[in-house]
């Protein structure tokens, strides 16, 4: 028999605990063993010597140091790289990897026909310069920072201005904003540029997490603790690649991160509060007031009534209040940001088991202890720009984690697996790097090239390693590789990948000729089944965007609503926007087939693709099939595919053939 309930025990026993006394003391500064300090990820990378090759095959393969590191590793295992992918395949791969869209048949043809020695380089440059590049890479970053445009939880309230952060991310990737700046602006934009809109929007990063609000009795301390927890954890997940969140309740079980380290990191955020920075003219304000005035009056009246109401009337009044708030006109333009409010700063304490009402010793700001000398002091409490200080530490050229973590993310997107296969976890429980020298070389190169992401893309894409074919060759070397390294850890070929949910939807719209190219702006709500809307706690929250042209925009511009993910996205492994997603699953299951066979998107777009095929290829089924293949797969059909499809068209509709192309492995995968 257990004596008391756990929760009741906390309440009843609080006064008896030594915690009350412990809370006045400064928590220990901590010591770390040489073994802990020597773990690879915590040791500053040094640029390793680049392997050299004197044989002809080796020299031919090595286009840049990436290839040298990869080839050295391959040869040590007795393996050789695969041949180069054919040009059409390579073209489609580079398009999806850099801009997330398929090339048009003409673009493929032009590249295949361009025999200039720098044809491929020019292609890469052109795509890096494309505004669509930021839309593809921005999405990955939005996954990592669990971006959404609603609060989540019960109310799932819209964050009317959160889209500005999404646009900031897209712009940052397009402009090749140096990563150290990108990081600093997100952590501390409001401190670094209090009058700069771009910086303020970037700092919205600190409030992207789901936010629990509740009616009735407020537990202010619990809610604040939830907010601080999210602000802290995402720094570890997104920038440092260490699972510091594990140290919230106890010292990290695997990594040298003490519970005190966790709360010392949290201390940087102790005065960070949400702020919507208004950006409207007096005229806009007046016009808004005309519409909103009567409703705000009613809201005030209801609030007053609520204060005086008996307990049984409160829930009803709370509901009325929420409904009234719903009726307000769309909020005036504002920047979704944070502010440093030192006057409202609350001291940070270590919390026993992470429980907000179980405070232990006091802590001040300090980076992770394992990366500092033993018993390193905390920062001064007077630090006026604490998050800038944190950003400076993270972007310091000597920080062993920041550059490695980011180059690894880029690598993962291009090669299908990170050099560290667990991109958010470089700790003991994560994977060890498959190519440690290469990772360190890339990290130093990244810092040396001013944290330029486009420079990293260039390096990776121009390597022979990247340009290999994904299908193993038939030679004995390839057979040996297939059996020795079936998972292709050593990169003896390229990895095939399935399109992400967004790429798949965008590609369908693109080949059907309906993709809208407009960039930026508030999230779009597309028409969805009534059954889905009714499954919302508040169905009125789904207001379909009235301009129909908006419905065919790229997926990154669709509203990111935590409590209603589009089934299409969900079924193809788009993340849930609640926690950081470092790499997406690639699951394969029947509901995906049902979505692409019976779903509205596939069927309406198949109709449009059929029209396009008829218009551009005429009435000849052979030409229709060939164009269909070139649009969806970037290549012409094989003789057998052509025969099968033409045979089908004798009795089948062109619309059904168009639908079939959306279901082809050759469409859904990138080779």
């Amino acid at each position, binding site marked *: 028999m257990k004596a008391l309930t756990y929760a*009741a025990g906390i*309440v009843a026993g609080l006064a008896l605990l030594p915690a009350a006394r412990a809370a006045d003391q400064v928590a220990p500064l901590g010591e770390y063993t040489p073994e802990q300090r020597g773990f690879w990820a915590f040791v500053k990378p040094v640029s390793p010597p680049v392997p050299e090759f004197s044989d002809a095959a080796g020299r031919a393969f090595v286009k840049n140091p990436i290839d040298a590191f990869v080839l050295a590793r391959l040869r040590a295992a007795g393996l050789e790289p695969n041949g180069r992918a054919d040009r059409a395949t390579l073209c489609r791969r580079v398009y999806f990897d850099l801009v997330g869209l398929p090339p048009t048949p003409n673009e493929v043809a032009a590249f295949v026909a361009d025999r200039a020695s720098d044809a491929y380089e020019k292609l890469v440059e052109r795509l890096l310069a494309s505004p669509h590049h930021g839309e593809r890479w921005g999405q990955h970053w939005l996954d990592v920072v669990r971006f959404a445009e609603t609060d989540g939880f019960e109310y799932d309230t819209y964050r009317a201005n959160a889209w500005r952060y999404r646009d900031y991310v897209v712009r940052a990737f397009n402009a090749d904003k140096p990563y150290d700046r990108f990081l600093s602006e997100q952590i501390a934009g409001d401190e670094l540029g209090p009058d700069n809109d771009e910086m303020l929007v970037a700092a919205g990063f600190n409030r992207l997490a789901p936010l629990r609000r509740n009616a009735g*009795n407020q537990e202010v301390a619990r809610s604040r603790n939830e907010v601080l927890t999210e602000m802290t954890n995402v720094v570890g997940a997104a920038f440092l690649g260490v699972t510091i969140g594990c140290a919230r309740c106890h010292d990290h079980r695997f990594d040298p991160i003490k519970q005190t380290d966790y709360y010392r990191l949290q201390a940087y955020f102790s005065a960070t509060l949400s702020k919507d920075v208004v950006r409207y003219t007096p005229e806009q304000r007046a016009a808004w007031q005309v519409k909103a005035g009567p409703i705000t009056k009613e809201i005030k009246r209801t609030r007053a009534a609520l204060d005086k109401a008996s307990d049984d009337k409160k829930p009803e009044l709370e509901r009325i209040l929420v409904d009234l708030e719903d009726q307000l006109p769309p909020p005036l333009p504002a920047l979704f940001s944070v502010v440093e409010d030192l006057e409202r700063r609350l001291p940070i304490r270590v919390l026993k088991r992470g429980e907000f009402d179980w405070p232990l010793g006091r802590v001040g700001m300090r980076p992770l202890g394992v990366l500092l000398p033993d018993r390193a002091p905390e920062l001064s409490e007077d630090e006026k720009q604490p998050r800038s200080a944190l950003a400076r530490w993270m972007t310091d050229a000597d920080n062993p984690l920041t550059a490695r973590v980011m180059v690894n993310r880029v690598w993962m997107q291009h090669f299908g697996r990170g050099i560290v296969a667990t991109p958010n976890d470089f700790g003991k429980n994560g994977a060890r790097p498959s190519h440690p020298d290469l990772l360190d070389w890339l990290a130093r190169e990244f810092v040396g090239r001013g944290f330029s992401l486009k420079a990293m893309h260039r390096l990776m894409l121009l390597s022979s390693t990247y340009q290999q074919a994904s299908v193993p060759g038939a030679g004995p070397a390839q057979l040996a590789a297939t059996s020795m390294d079936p998972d292709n850890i050593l990169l003896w070929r390229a990895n095939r990948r399935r399109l992400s949910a967004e790429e798949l939807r965008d590609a369908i719209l693109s080949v059907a000729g309906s993709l809208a190219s407009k960039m930026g702006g508030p999230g779009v709500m597309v028409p969805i089944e009534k059954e889905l809307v009714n499954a919302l706690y508040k169905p009125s929250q789904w207001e379909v965007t009235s301009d129909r042209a908006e419905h065919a925009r790229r997926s990154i511009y669709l509203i990111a609503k935590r409590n209603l993910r589009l089934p299409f996205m969900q079924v193809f492994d788009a993340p849930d926007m609640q926690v950081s997603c470092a790499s997406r699953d690639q699951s394969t299951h029947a509901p995906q*087939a049902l979505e692409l066979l019976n779903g509205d998107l596939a069927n309406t777009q198949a109709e449009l693709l059929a029209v396009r095929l008829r218009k551009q290829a005429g009435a000849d089924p052979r030409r229709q099939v060939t164009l269909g293949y070139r649009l969806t797969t970037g290549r012409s059909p094989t003789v057998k595919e052509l025969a099968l499809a033409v045979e089908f068209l004798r009795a089948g509709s062109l619309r059904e053939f168009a639908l079939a192309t959306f279901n082809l492995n050759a469409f859904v995968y990138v080779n």
Partner: protein
Amino acid sequence: MKHLPRADFRLTRNRREFLGDAFCGFGGLAFTHLMWQQELRAGTINPLAPKPPHLPAKAKSVIFLFMAGGPSHIETFDPKPVLNKLHGQKRPPSFGEAKYQFISPGARLMGTKRTFKKHGESGIEVSDLLPRTAECIDDIAVIRSCFGDMVVHSAAQYQLMTGRVVPGFASMGAWSVYGLGSESESLPAYVVLPDPKGALEGGQPMYGNGFLPAVYQPTMFRPGKKPVLNLQLPAAVPLAQRRRTVDLIRNLNLTGAAPDDGELNARINAYDLAFKMQTEAPAVLDVANEPEETRELYGIGKQPTDDYGRRCLLARRLVEKGVRFVCVVAGGGPGKLQWDAHEDIEENHLRMAGHTDQPVAGLLTDLKRRGLLDQTLVVWGGEFGRSPESQGSKGRDHHNLGFTMWMAGGGVKGGRVVGATDDIGLHATIDPHHFRDIHATILNQMGMDQNQLTYLHLGRKERLTEVEGDVIEELL
């Protein structure tokens, strides 16, 4: 009974050991675990293939009768004569503290208007709110000492479903399918039957697969013309024509897939399965073919039981076909239409009990006479109970520190009571059981060991029961 070997996990372990030796420096333990996860994803192992349990399983399936909004323990399964005596008084300090969502300090205790009577051979007391369920009490094990950590709906619903008070984690149903796979080819393995009156505060994320791969996501059987998304052919496409299209897709895809290409072949097979679901599932979903007597048993065809009766009957049909986890939600939309009786406990609970009592009893009776109760674990409960104090004059607020859930079938010994709350139903005082214990017990009855059912996510081996959780042995 002998413990069965867990083939796939054994495989992982052996593989891990093997790789540890053969590929030293390749990433070690976590990495090979990851590789195994990737194999699953890649479809070289069908992620939904039935998997042997860790332990001898009692239950093949679970039906969770989710009483959304938080039914009162005081009005249903937990008689509190002392509370009735203290009616109108302030809570004596000896009972300790509680935090409520709405009630202000100083509220008065409120006795119940329900009367309790002993039922069945076990003589367990059940209130007159649930006369039909009371008739089944000898098959039911009542857990009077449940508790959770949160007193607001969304967070409490997340904890009830996923073990965490925040969204983003995997639900019981998703974990079950991850651990055991599916016994049904033509039906989804994890089904939620929401209340047509509307959604709940926790929304979509509470039922979700969280960080588990999308293959473990729930299938919502939504009210309306299209209960299952994408199961119907688009208008104007005849089935025979679509069959040809699916064949074309298959043939075209086969031309490019090497016979040993696990992933592409898994994808080709997914189309066969999809077509099978499309043609076979609608028949299972249609309860019209059930005999009149069965339909009456569930209260179908009359009010107020028709809707919940239909969904309970559907739940039986689904588990009969091998569906692993079915959640049948009672309550939806605004709180009034859930068990969320802030304003008037009598009005609300009489209505909610009226919707559900006969269907629930019908389900237990029907499962039992078909011999399905032995292999189906039925769980009843909400995200919390309700306060001993009154909210206003007639309502009760949320209350998470002591409330009732029950289990039946699936190896659970019926006709017994586990744990107790104090004399006013405030705190679970004897054998308190957190949601984690409920989760551990559900997993245990399905043959899964909570410590072995893990998934590596963001550097942590996640489990449904987080860091602790005890199987409630008194139930077994």
